[in-house]
């Protein structure tokens, strides 16, 4: 199940439902929180923009890939969009399995792949009023490549391959080590669209 929504979520209720649907021996969960993204300034809030429709489809494809690779009874992903304050929950991934190793592997795969494939973009609003679009970390692309997957869009350029095919994340010079991109002070308002989408798989 994949849920993209503005509202906060109740991870315990979601895990209880997951457990109720299966006689799973193991459930592994990952929860991501709003933290300080800039190294030198405090984060006041994040704005999460997404591409409705494609977002859910990409995450469902990621969960299906995890289920094809490991023994998974069910995967659940909840991702929030819109304005999120410091320390709020952003994303929750839960995987139920008969085998804990498979649950750990699948859960980590899903969050790693989500970070390089699911069309979300974070804008960080600093306590001092500055606003930045967070740039993709090379480390995230590298982590995805370690699973044998090609990070989404890494294949731009002449030697490129479709995102579903195997490939290397190293194909894009200039993507490395850009921790954040300054756009302009308070230039962010026009991009603010927060939609709530809920899809099941």
């Amino acid at each position, binding site marked *: 199940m994949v849920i993209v929504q503005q509202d906060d979520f109740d991870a315990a209720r979601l895990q209880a439902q997951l457990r109720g649907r299966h006689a799973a021996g193991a459930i592994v969960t990952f929860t*991501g929180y709003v933290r300080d993204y800039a190294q030198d300034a405090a984060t006041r809030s994040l704005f999460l923009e997404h591409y409705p429709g494609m977002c859910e*489809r990409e995450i469902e494809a990621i969960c299906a890939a995890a289920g094809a690779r490991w023994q998974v009874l069910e995967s659940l992903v909840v991702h929030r969009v819109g304005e999120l304050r410091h320390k709020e929950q952003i*994303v929750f991934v839960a995987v139920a399995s008969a085998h804990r190793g498979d649950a750990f592997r699948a859960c980590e795969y899903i969050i790693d792949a989500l970070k390089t494939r699911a*069309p*979300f973009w974070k804008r960080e609003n600093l306590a001092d009023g500055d606003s930045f679009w967070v740039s*993709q970390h090379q480390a995230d692309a590298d982590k995805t490549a370690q699973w044998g997957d090609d990070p989404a869009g890494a294949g*731009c*350029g002449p030697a490129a391959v479709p995102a579903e095919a195997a490939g290397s994340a190293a194909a894009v010079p200039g993507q490395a080590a850009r921790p954040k991109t300054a756009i302009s002070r308070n*230039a962010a308002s026009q991009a603010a669209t927060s939609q709530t989408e809920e899809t099941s798989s």
Partner: protein
Amino acid sequence: MNGAAIKVLYFAQVAELTGTRQESWPLPHSVSGADWLCQLEARYPQLAPVSRLRLAVNQRHVAHQASIQAGDEVAVFEPVTGG
């Protein structure tokens, strides 16, 4: 060929730079993503360099050599940063 077009979606910083989130783009014949990005840069020089931008066609990630055809939904965005 008259009326042949694609639907273009801009997200996040790309939407800020173009000043719009969606537009119809005439496309008389199919082109590669890379060639279309050149057209895009000609219209929105502020997007340069466009080689860093990612494309999705009909809600799937594609490489820049992928083909874009009339009727496609083409999305343009910076590398994603969810999670």
